[in-house]
């Protein structure tokens, strides 16, 4: 029998010690009729057989997994360093659980403390927690933090936030007592617009949540929004992309009180949508309202430096229905990996990675601009942008997929109605995309558009 360690002799001896005649007798107090179900599950298989099955299943995705990936919209095909993958396989780390016994969990605790420090430095804020589920739930939790801090319930959300993240905010809003007001953050042709979000903040507003870059890859200066929010006693929350902060002004420096978002790009790979990493950083003053685990530095009984979970009175296991969040198991190993990624990349590695995205986007935009029938939109684009052709976006993606290029996300087909049109494709260019792939992309698109004319 796989993965049970008691031998038949052990079972017999143990049952004997308990005065029981059979394994079934262990369940004697479970009502008999509840134990009669004949489970319709396939028979067990050997590791060899299961390995073959999984290899076959994985192989059926190979065309997508092996394509030149220009997909983004919340998950990005960045390089995962080999050293990171290697270290993540240390059994001591990944088979542990929540470090409630700090004396034998210093490895995870220190690594998470280092992660918290790196995220705080990167975002330009004071403190960061040790992970939330993903970028979408991090936004929801950030809004919850603002509500607790301000004792207000109205939150203003820039509609250029990732639509999936807006969905999650809507899912959670009613239960958390939030009134969500979505305001336009600028159309594709006009570029980003701070006027509407700023004007929507009033004296009953807990927070203004603004993406930077926005869903269309555009960066903006948030300082005026910070002023508008703070003038009304509201918090400014920046939903941000960590790698971009190597080059771009980080949320903290632009006046954000909280930064949150998706940390998948920090060495986590794609993995069909998860596990990823919700990050949340904030000013020191907000720390007691923060959701999620926090690791603190302290000393042990001998006076040596040591680490432990701290401020646990915010958390569900102590505070129950009054906790700052219900989160318990989180994405610790992903936070660990993100810290490790930043340590491997270092200042210069991360700068290059961020710059390579800028350069890749610029290169692809330049090539697409030269194709008759392709429309581009203005803005400071870091890793992503939208282009429009007269074809339906799904068709464009299909044609390019046939050439081994995952061209991007067809906005209308994937996300329904929005400020985009049927021909709009959201495309991402990471440091992994080569000049050849960019050339091939442009050539294939030129052909597709020409054929349709």
């Amino acid at each position, binding site marked *: 029998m796989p993965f049970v360690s008691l031998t038949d002799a052990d079972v017999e001896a143990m049952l004997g010690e308990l005065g029981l005649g059979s394994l079934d007798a262990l369940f004697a107090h479970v009502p008999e009729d509840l134990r009669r179900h004949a489970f319709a*599950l396939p028979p067990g298989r050997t590791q060899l057989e299961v390995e073959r099955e999984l290899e076959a299943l994985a*192989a059926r995705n190979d065309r997508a997994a092996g394509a030149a990936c220009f997909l983004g919209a919340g998950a990005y095909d960045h390089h995962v360093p080999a050293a990171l993958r290697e270290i993540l396989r240390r059994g001591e780390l990944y088979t542990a659980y929540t470090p409630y016994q700090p004396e034998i969990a210093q490895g995870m605790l220190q690594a998470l403390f280092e992660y918290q420090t790196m995220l705080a430095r990167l975002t330009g804020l004071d403190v960061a927690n040790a992970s939330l589920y993903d970028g979408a739930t991090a936004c929801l939790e950030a809004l919850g933090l603002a509500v607790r801090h301000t004792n207000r319930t109205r939150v203003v959300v820039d509609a250029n936030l*990732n639509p999936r993240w807006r969905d999650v905010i809507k*899912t959670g809003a009613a239960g958390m007592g939030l009134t969500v007001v979505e305001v336009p953050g600028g159309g594709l042709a006009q570029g980003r617009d701070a006027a509407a979000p700023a004007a929507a903040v009033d004296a009953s507003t807990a927070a203004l949540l603004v993406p930077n870059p926005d869903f269309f890859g555009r960066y903006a200066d948030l300082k005026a929004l910070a002023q508008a929010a703070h003038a009304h006693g509201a918090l400014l929350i920046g939903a941000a992309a960590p790698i971009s902060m190597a080059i771009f002004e980080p949320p903290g420096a632009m006046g954000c009180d909280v930064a949150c978002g998706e940390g998948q790009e920090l060495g986590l790979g794609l993995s069909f949508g*998860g596990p990823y990493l919700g990050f949340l950083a904030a000013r020191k003053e907000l720390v007691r309202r923060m959701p999620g685990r926090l690791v603190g530095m302290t000393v042990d009984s001998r006076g040596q430096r040591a680490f432990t979970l*701290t401020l646990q009175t915010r958390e569900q296991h102590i505070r129950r229905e009054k906790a700052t969040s219900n989160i318990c198991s989180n994405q610790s190993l*992903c936070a660990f990996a993100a810290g490790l990624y930043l340590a491997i990349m*270092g200042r210069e590695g991360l700068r290059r990675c961020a710059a390579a995205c800028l350069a890749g986007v610029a290169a692809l935009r330049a090539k697409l601009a030269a194709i008759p029938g392709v429309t581009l939109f203005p803005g400071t684009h870091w890793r992503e942008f939208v282009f429009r052709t007269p074809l339906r976006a799904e068709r464009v993606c299909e044609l390019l997929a046939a050439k081994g290029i995952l061209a991007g996300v067809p906005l209308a087909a994937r996300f329904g109605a929005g400020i985009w049109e049927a021909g709009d494709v959201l495309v991402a260019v990471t440091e992994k995309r080569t000049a050849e792939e960019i050339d091939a992309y442009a050539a294939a698109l030129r052909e597709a558009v020409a054929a349709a004319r």
Partner: protein
Amino acid sequence: MELVFEKHSAASGAANVPDPGPEAEALVPPELRRAAPPALPELSELDVVRHYLALSRRQVGVDSVFYPLGSCTMKYNPKLCEEAARLPGFARLHPHAPDELCQGMLALLWNLEQRLCEICGMDAFTLAPMAGAQGEWTGLLLVRAYHRARNDARTEVLVPDSAHGTNPASAAMAGFEVRAVASNDDGEVDLAALRNAVGPKTAALMLTNPNTLGLFETRIREIAAVLHQAGALLYYDGANLNAICGVARPGDMGFDIVHVNVHKTFATPHGGGGPGAGPVGVKARIAPFLPAPRIVREGERFARAEASPQSIGRVGAFGGNAGILIRAYAYLAMLGREGVTRVAQHAVLAARYLAARLASDFPSAYDRPCMHEFVATPSAAILGKGVKTLDIAKRLIDCGFHPPTVYFPMIVHEALMVEPTETETKERLDAFVAAMHVIAAEAMATPEKLKTAPQNAPVGRVDEVKAARELVLTYDMAR
């Protein structure tokens, strides 16, 4: 040991990515440019590797020691499952890749849903929730949507006083008022108290079965009837599914909604605190409210569908922690029908055996047969020496064991919650028993030895009061 910020060597991170040259950054308008680069470590790859290996030596997991952490099901995490999740066809698959190109992935997830339905006795599953607590939250939003659709505005969720903290916290996050229901002297839900608490405002009762004391709720059918007669739903917190998996099904007991913790029952690793996954299963009448995306099968083809108009919406950016779900699928495929049942049988046997062998020094809080775990307390004699459960836990560390869960559930004074799981040998269980009795003897003879434990860990007892009082949450706050 040093922090990563205290080491310096020839930085090599730059070698990971080609330098696009200064023109790229010149594209950024000055007002958007970061003034000074973030202070990240600058280390050679070798030094990074050594740093993290040194960290891993200051950490224990299931792969290192017996880890009988109650309520957490710290079973062995099969390595094939790790390999499977890393196959490029899974690991490099973008969640926005078109369905036609991820048929293998979708088939796997669809099949996993089917198997979870069968194991739990449910009609439909969503794999989207990313942990047990998120499953609870999702489940309670389903409760809310279900009642709303019937024009029934119910505002209260009941939880036993022995419930895990996530239960009340999730209920509050889903907008419910939380009301605790007392346990009786047998450690089960007090039916009279339950009848008193249930009314037209009751939306649901959240229950683990076996409950958080490791005891099977023998009157589960009556509990379900009380709720259903009042128009309320019964929610199953699947944290303890390992005890009954392949033996009995929550759906047959009368539960309407369940979440399972795949990082417990289905052997996916705990990751030092996550990630796990918390799929949610429901009876047919609740299925229309499930979150997007739904995985559907059309003949031999699989697709992701948007949810129905009645859906609660989305609970995460994508479809859940797919990388974790792959591991769970692989585990179930290896176990198969008999294997699943064997898991529950051996998990219960191991717990029952430990409870019996420890009883003289660590009597169970309830004198009843336990399921896959049990809650014990140090004997009166031990407590009389001024020794606390915490001291026993710390001394166990010196003996080479991870301590059990301590101080949970809150209704048991000085609780020690032990869950051995099915993956330990009898020799290991016996060694644990021996260590516990030695510690009990030490508590009587040399209690100081316990109070100053651990002595053999990477650090001595950690000062949690100082940590909370002098908050140092980043390296910069320390300076």
